[in-house]
Protein backbone atom coordinates (compact mmCIF):
# COMPACT_ATOMS: atom_id res chain seq x y z
CA UNK A 1 0.00 0.00 0.00
CA UNK A 2 2.78 2.37 0.90
CA UNK A 3 4.47 1.72 -2.45
CA UNK A 4 1.32 2.71 -4.35
CA UNK A 5 1.17 5.97 -2.45
CA UNK A 6 4.75 6.76 -3.32
CA UNK A 7 4.20 6.15 -7.02
CA UNK A 8 1.06 8.30 -7.09
CA UNK A 9 2.96 11.07 -5.33
CA UNK A 10 5.79 10.98 -7.88
CA UNK A 11 3.38 11.14 -10.81
CA UNK A 12 1.57 14.10 -9.26
CA UNK A 13 4.85 15.81 -8.48
CA UNK A 14 5.89 15.38 -12.11
CA UNK A 15 2.72 17.07 -13.30
CA UNK A 16 3.07 19.85 -10.78
CA UNK A 17 6.59 20.56 -12.02
CA UNK A 18 5.52 20.72 -15.65
CA UNK A 19 2.79 23.21 -14.76
CA UNK A 20 5.05 25.56 -12.86
CA UNK A 21 6.33 28.66 -14.63
CA UNK A 22 9.48 28.19 -16.69
CA UNK A 23 12.75 29.21 -15.03
CA UNK A 24 14.57 29.69 -18.30
CA UNK A 25 14.48 29.07 -22.04
CA UNK A 26 16.60 27.47 -24.74
CA UNK A 27 18.32 30.07 -26.93
CA UNK A 28 20.14 27.84 -29.40
CA UNK A 29 20.50 24.18 -30.32
CA UNK A 30 22.93 22.45 -32.63
CA UNK A 31 22.37 18.75 -33.31
CA UNK A 32 20.31 16.71 -30.84
CA UNK A 33 19.17 18.02 -27.46
CA UNK A 34 16.29 17.26 -25.10
CA UNK A 35 14.62 18.53 -21.93
CA UNK A 36 13.01 16.07 -19.52
CA UNK A 37 10.72 17.42 -16.82
CA UNK A 38 8.95 14.89 -14.63
CA UNK A 39 7.80 12.15 -16.99
CA UNK A 40 7.77 14.36 -20.05
CA UNK A 41 10.68 14.50 -22.48
CA UNK A 42 10.68 17.08 -25.26
CA UNK A 43 13.06 17.82 -28.11
CA UNK A 44 14.87 21.05 -27.25
CA UNK A 45 14.28 23.88 -29.70
CA UNK A 46 14.89 27.62 -29.66
CA UNK A 47 12.34 29.01 -27.17
CA UNK A 48 11.70 25.70 -25.33
CA UNK A 49 11.02 26.20 -21.60
CA UNK A 50 13.20 24.81 -18.81
CA UNK A 51 11.61 24.08 -15.41
CA UNK A 52 12.82 23.41 -11.91
CA UNK A 53 13.73 19.72 -11.94
CA UNK A 54 14.44 19.64 -15.69
CA UNK A 55 17.14 17.38 -17.03
CA UNK A 56 18.94 18.83 -20.06
CA UNK A 57 20.76 16.48 -22.42
CA UNK A 58 22.77 16.87 -25.60
CA UNK A 59 23.83 14.16 -28.04
CA UNK A 60 27.07 13.56 -29.92
CA UNK A 61 28.48 16.60 -31.77
CA UNK A 62 25.65 18.68 -30.30
CA UNK A 63 25.36 21.80 -28.16
CA UNK A 64 22.69 23.93 -26.50
CA UNK A 65 22.48 27.40 -24.93
CA UNK A 66 20.05 28.30 -22.13
CA UNK A 67 19.30 31.64 -20.45
CA UNK A 68 17.62 31.60 -17.02
CA UNK A 69 15.16 34.16 -15.63
CA UNK A 70 17.76 35.68 -13.29
CA UNK A 71 20.09 36.28 -16.30
CA UNK A 72 22.33 33.28 -15.57
CA UNK A 73 23.57 32.08 -18.95
CA UNK A 74 24.81 28.58 -19.73
CA UNK A 75 25.89 26.54 -22.70
CA UNK A 76 26.47 22.81 -22.95
CA UNK A 77 28.74 20.91 -25.30
CA UNK A 78 28.36 17.37 -26.67
CA UNK A 79 27.25 14.33 -24.61
CA UNK A 80 26.09 16.41 -21.66
CA UNK A 81 23.66 15.60 -18.85
CA UNK A 82 22.77 18.61 -16.65
CA UNK A 83 19.97 18.85 -14.09
CA UNK A 84 18.42 21.86 -12.38
CA UNK A 85 17.56 20.53 -8.93
CA UNK A 86 16.48 23.75 -7.27
CA UNK A 87 15.76 27.19 -8.67
CA UNK A 88 14.26 29.92 -6.49
CA UNK A 89 14.19 33.48 -7.80
CA UNK A 90 11.90 35.68 -5.71
CA UNK A 91 14.06 38.57 -4.51
CA UNK A 92 11.16 40.35 -2.76
CA UNK A 93 10.53 37.25 -0.62
CA UNK A 94 14.23 36.61 -0.10
CA UNK A 95 13.92 33.23 -1.83
CA UNK A 96 17.11 32.79 -3.80
CA UNK A 97 18.72 29.48 -4.69
CA UNK A 98 20.18 27.79 -7.74
CA UNK A 99 21.30 24.19 -7.26
CA UNK A 100 22.29 22.19 -10.33
CA UNK A 101 24.47 19.25 -11.34
CA UNK A 102 26.66 18.40 -14.30
CA UNK A 103 26.68 14.58 -14.40
CA UNK A 104 28.75 14.50 -17.59
CA UNK A 105 29.75 16.64 -20.54
CA UNK A 106 30.82 20.28 -20.65
CA UNK A 107 29.41 23.55 -19.34
CA UNK A 108 30.16 27.25 -19.85
CA UNK A 109 28.58 29.13 -16.94
CA UNK A 110 27.99 32.89 -16.61
CA UNK A 111 26.59 34.20 -13.31
CA UNK A 112 23.24 35.90 -13.01
CA UNK A 113 21.39 37.96 -10.41
CA UNK A 114 20.74 35.21 -7.80
CA UNK A 115 24.33 35.10 -6.61
CA UNK A 116 24.67 38.89 -6.78
CA UNK A 117 21.81 39.15 -4.30
CA UNK A 118 22.81 36.12 -2.23
CA UNK A 119 26.39 34.83 -2.36
CA UNK A 120 26.62 31.09 -1.60
CA UNK A 121 23.13 30.49 -3.03
CA UNK A 122 24.54 28.98 -6.22
CA UNK A 123 26.13 25.53 -6.51
CA UNK A 124 26.97 23.22 -9.40
CA UNK A 125 27.37 19.59 -8.37
CA UNK A 126 29.82 17.21 -10.05
CA UNK A 127 30.23 13.43 -9.66
CA UNK A 128 33.17 14.20 -7.32
CA UNK A 129 31.78 17.02 -5.22
CA UNK A 130 30.36 20.51 -5.55
CA UNK A 131 31.38 23.90 -6.91
CA UNK A 132 30.26 27.04 -5.09
CA UNK A 133 29.90 29.98 -7.47
CA UNK A 134 30.40 33.66 -6.62
CA UNK A 135 29.78 36.03 -9.48
CA UNK A 136 31.87 34.84 -12.36
CA UNK A 137 32.30 32.79 -15.52
CA UNK A 138 33.80 29.32 -15.63
CA UNK A 139 34.21 26.25 -17.79
CA UNK A 140 33.58 22.75 -16.41
CA UNK A 141 34.21 19.40 -18.03
CA UNK A 142 33.10 16.09 -16.54
CA UNK A 143 34.17 12.90 -18.23
CA UNK A 144 34.26 9.45 -16.75
Amino acid sequence: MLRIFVIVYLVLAGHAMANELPIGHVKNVSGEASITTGEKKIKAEVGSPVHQGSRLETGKKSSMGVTFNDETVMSFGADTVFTVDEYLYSPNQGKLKFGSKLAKGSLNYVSGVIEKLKPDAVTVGTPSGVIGVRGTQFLLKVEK
Partner: protein
Amino acid sequence: MKTLLPRSAKSTSKPLTYGVLAIATVTLLGGCAQQQAYSVPGGCCKAPIEEAPKSYVVLIPSPDGTVGEIVVKGASGEQVLNKAGQAGTIEGQALQVDDKRIKGDFGDTIAALPKIPVHYLLYFSSGTTLSSASNALLPEIIAEAKTRPAVDISVIGHTDTLSSDAYNDKLALKRATRVSELLEAKGLKANSLIIESHGEKNLLVKTPDNTREPKNRRVEVSVR
Protein backbone atom coordinates in the same frame (compact mmCIF):
# COMPACT_ATOMS: atom_id res chain seq x y z
CA MET B 1 54.80 6.98 -2.87
CA LYS B 2 56.80 10.11 -2.22
CA THR B 3 60.12 8.42 -3.05
CA LEU B 4 58.80 7.71 -6.53
CA LEU B 5 58.35 11.40 -7.35
CA PRO B 6 60.58 12.90 -10.01
CA ARG B 7 63.38 14.86 -8.34
CA SER B 8 62.20 18.18 -9.75
CA ALA B 9 58.84 17.80 -8.07
CA LYS B 10 60.36 17.98 -4.60
CA SER B 11 61.01 21.69 -4.94
CA THR B 12 57.35 22.42 -5.57
CA SER B 13 55.54 24.43 -2.93
CA LYS B 14 53.24 22.57 -0.58
CA PRO B 15 49.77 23.51 -1.86
CA LEU B 16 50.62 21.85 -5.14
CA THR B 17 51.59 18.51 -3.66
CA TYR B 18 48.33 16.83 -4.57
CA GLY B 19 48.64 17.91 -8.16
CA VAL B 20 52.23 16.74 -8.33
CA LEU B 21 51.30 13.40 -6.84
CA ALA B 22 48.57 12.99 -9.40
CA ILE B 23 50.91 13.89 -12.24
CA ALA B 24 53.61 11.61 -10.93
CA THR B 25 51.12 8.78 -10.71
CA VAL B 26 49.89 9.33 -14.24
CA THR B 27 53.47 9.51 -15.50
CA LEU B 28 54.48 6.30 -13.77
CA LEU B 29 51.42 4.41 -14.88
CA GLY B 30 51.26 5.72 -18.37
CA GLY B 31 54.88 6.03 -19.43
CA CYS B 32 56.15 8.92 -21.52
CA ALA B 33 54.09 8.72 -24.66
CA GLN B 34 53.06 12.35 -25.17
CA GLN B 35 54.30 15.85 -24.76
CA GLN B 36 53.05 17.21 -21.46
CA ALA B 37 49.49 18.36 -21.68
CA TYR B 38 49.60 20.53 -18.58
CA SER B 39 52.10 21.49 -15.94
CA VAL B 40 52.24 22.63 -12.36
CA PRO B 41 53.36 26.27 -11.95
CA GLY B 42 56.94 26.66 -10.84
CA GLY B 43 58.70 24.97 -13.70
CA CYS B 44 58.66 21.43 -12.39
CA CYS B 45 57.50 18.38 -14.25
CA LYS B 46 59.77 18.28 -17.23
CA ALA B 47 58.86 14.62 -17.51
CA PRO B 48 56.25 14.08 -20.24
CA ILE B 49 52.67 13.57 -19.05
CA GLU B 50 50.44 10.91 -20.53
CA GLU B 51 47.31 13.00 -20.17
CA ALA B 52 45.63 15.60 -17.98
CA PRO B 53 42.59 14.59 -15.90
CA LYS B 54 39.52 14.18 -18.05
CA SER B 55 37.41 16.27 -15.67
CA TYR B 56 38.43 19.78 -14.68
CA VAL B 57 37.24 23.35 -14.13
CA VAL B 58 38.71 26.67 -15.34
CA LEU B 59 37.82 30.16 -14.07
CA ILE B 60 37.61 32.81 -16.78
CA PRO B 61 36.71 36.53 -16.61
CA SER B 62 33.03 37.45 -16.68
CA PRO B 63 31.69 39.14 -19.81
CA ASP B 64 31.98 42.49 -17.97
CA GLY B 65 35.71 41.84 -17.44
CA THR B 66 35.57 41.18 -13.70
CA VAL B 67 36.84 37.95 -12.18
CA GLY B 68 34.79 36.34 -9.41
CA GLU B 69 35.46 33.23 -7.43
CA ILE B 70 34.53 29.56 -7.33
CA VAL B 71 35.17 27.06 -4.57
CA VAL B 72 35.71 23.49 -5.74
CA LYS B 73 35.06 20.85 -3.09
CA GLY B 74 35.86 17.22 -3.81
CA ALA B 75 37.26 14.00 -2.44
CA SER B 76 40.80 15.43 -2.30
CA GLY B 77 39.97 18.70 -0.59
CA GLU B 78 38.85 22.21 -1.34
CA GLN B 79 40.34 24.73 -3.72
CA VAL B 80 39.44 28.38 -4.25
CA LEU B 81 39.83 29.65 -7.82
CA ASN B 82 39.90 33.46 -8.02
CA LYS B 83 42.35 34.33 -10.81
CA ALA B 84 41.58 34.38 -14.52
CA GLY B 85 42.77 31.14 -16.13
CA GLN B 86 43.18 29.33 -12.81
CA ALA B 87 42.16 25.67 -13.05
CA GLY B 88 41.49 22.71 -10.80
CA THR B 89 40.41 19.11 -10.85
CA ILE B 90 36.85 18.43 -9.72
CA GLU B 91 38.36 16.55 -6.77
CA GLY B 92 39.61 19.88 -5.41
CA GLN B 93 43.26 19.79 -6.54
CA ALA B 94 45.27 22.56 -8.21
CA LEU B 95 45.95 22.13 -11.89
CA GLN B 96 47.33 24.05 -14.82
CA VAL B 97 45.80 23.48 -18.22
CA ASP B 98 47.19 25.02 -21.41
CA ASP B 99 45.01 27.25 -23.60
CA LYS B 100 45.18 24.87 -26.52
CA ARG B 101 43.57 22.10 -24.55
CA ILE B 102 40.88 24.44 -23.16
CA LYS B 103 40.04 25.52 -26.71
CA GLY B 104 39.90 21.88 -27.82
CA ASP B 105 37.71 20.79 -24.92
CA PHE B 106 35.40 23.81 -24.77
CA GLY B 107 35.47 25.45 -28.23
CA ASP B 108 32.01 24.20 -29.24
CA THR B 109 30.57 24.85 -25.77
CA ILE B 110 31.84 28.45 -25.71
CA ALA B 111 30.50 29.01 -29.22
CA ALA B 112 27.01 27.99 -28.03
CA LEU B 113 26.88 30.56 -25.21
CA PRO B 114 23.74 32.71 -25.64
CA LYS B 115 24.03 36.48 -25.86
CA ILE B 116 24.52 38.00 -22.39
CA PRO B 117 21.26 39.56 -21.10
CA VAL B 118 20.94 43.31 -20.67
CA HIS B 119 18.65 45.30 -18.44
CA TYR B 120 17.29 48.81 -18.56
CA LEU B 121 16.07 51.12 -15.81
CA LEU B 122 13.08 53.31 -16.50
CA TYR B 123 12.04 56.17 -14.19
CA PHE B 124 8.74 57.92 -13.54
CA SER B 125 7.95 61.62 -13.43
CA SER B 126 4.81 60.84 -11.43
CA GLY B 127 2.56 57.83 -10.74
CA THR B 128 2.78 55.58 -13.77
CA THR B 129 3.97 58.28 -16.21
CA LEU B 130 7.46 57.63 -17.53
CA SER B 131 10.00 60.44 -17.56
CA SER B 132 10.68 61.70 -21.08
CA ALA B 133 14.23 60.28 -21.03
CA SER B 134 12.91 56.85 -20.05
CA ASN B 135 10.13 57.04 -22.61
CA ALA B 136 12.79 57.63 -25.26
CA LEU B 137 14.52 54.38 -24.19
CA LEU B 138 11.59 52.18 -25.21
CA PRO B 139 12.53 51.91 -28.91
CA GLU B 140 16.08 50.94 -27.86
CA ILE B 141 14.70 48.10 -25.71
CA ILE B 142 12.60 46.84 -28.60
CA ALA B 143 15.55 47.03 -31.00
CA GLU B 144 17.69 45.04 -28.53
CA ALA B 145 14.93 42.43 -28.15
CA LYS B 146 14.82 41.94 -31.92
CA THR B 147 18.51 40.93 -31.97
CA ARG B 148 17.84 37.89 -29.75
CA PRO B 149 16.43 34.47 -30.66
CA ALA B 150 13.18 33.72 -28.75
CA VAL B 151 13.70 36.76 -26.54
CA ASP B 152 12.45 36.55 -22.95
CA ILE B 153 11.50 39.72 -21.09
CA SER B 154 10.89 40.50 -17.43
CA VAL B 155 9.32 43.81 -16.46
CA ILE B 156 9.80 44.43 -12.74
CA GLY B 157 8.17 47.34 -10.93
CA HIS B 158 9.62 49.12 -7.88
CA THR B 159 8.60 52.03 -5.65
CA ASP B 160 10.25 54.18 -3.01
CA THR B 161 9.28 53.74 0.67
CA LEU B 162 6.64 56.47 0.77
CA SER B 163 3.22 54.93 1.75
CA SER B 164 2.45 51.40 2.91
CA ASP B 165 3.86 48.08 1.68
CA ALA B 166 0.49 47.02 0.31
CA TYR B 167 -0.02 50.28 -1.59
CA ASN B 168 3.49 50.08 -3.03
CA ASP B 169 3.06 46.45 -4.12
CA LYS B 170 0.07 47.56 -6.20
CA LEU B 171 1.73 50.74 -7.50
CA ALA B 172 4.85 48.82 -8.60
CA LEU B 173 2.67 46.30 -10.42
CA LYS B 174 0.78 49.15 -12.13
CA ARG B 175 4.09 50.67 -13.25
CA ALA B 176 5.36 47.37 -14.62
CA THR B 177 2.06 46.67 -16.37
CA ARG B 178 2.08 50.16 -17.91
CA VAL B 179 5.61 49.69 -19.23
CA SER B 180 4.80 46.29 -20.73
CA GLU B 181 1.72 47.80 -22.43
CA LEU B 182 3.84 50.60 -23.88
CA LEU B 183 6.45 48.13 -25.12
CA GLU B 184 3.82 45.93 -26.74
CA ALA B 185 2.09 48.93 -28.29
CA LYS B 186 5.40 49.92 -29.86
CA GLY B 187 5.82 46.48 -31.38
CA LEU B 188 7.64 44.32 -28.82
CA LYS B 189 7.25 40.61 -29.51
CA ALA B 190 8.59 38.16 -26.94
CA ASN B 191 8.85 34.40 -26.43
CA SER B 192 7.81 35.06 -22.82
CA LEU B 193 7.05 38.19 -20.82
CA ILE B 194 6.92 38.20 -17.02
CA ILE B 195 5.43 41.17 -15.14
CA GLU B 196 6.52 41.38 -11.50
CA SER B 197 6.19 43.72 -8.54
CA HIS B 198 8.93 44.05 -5.98
CA GLY B 199 7.09 46.89 -4.25
CA GLU B 200 9.39 48.77 -1.88
CA LYS B 201 11.41 45.62 -1.02
CA ASN B 202 14.19 46.02 -3.56
CA LEU B 203 15.50 49.58 -3.25
CA LEU B 204 18.15 50.87 -5.63
CA VAL B 205 19.04 53.58 -3.10
CA LYS B 206 18.68 52.40 0.52
CA THR B 207 16.46 54.78 2.49
CA PRO B 208 14.46 54.69 5.74
CA ASP B 209 10.71 54.02 5.53
CA ASN B 210 8.44 56.81 4.25
CA THR B 211 11.15 58.46 2.18
CA ARG B 212 10.61 59.99 -1.23
CA GLU B 213 13.42 58.88 -3.56
CA PRO B 214 12.92 59.27 -7.34
CA LYS B 215 15.68 56.75 -8.10
CA ASN B 216 13.71 54.03 -6.34
CA ARG B 217 10.57 54.73 -8.39
CA ARG B 218 11.57 52.62 -11.34
CA VAL B 219 10.85 49.70 -13.62
CA GLU B 220 13.57 47.27 -14.61
CA VAL B 221 13.34 45.61 -18.00
CA SER B 222 15.45 42.46 -18.36
CA VAL B 223 16.01 41.47 -22.00
CA ARG B 224 17.29 37.88 -22.32
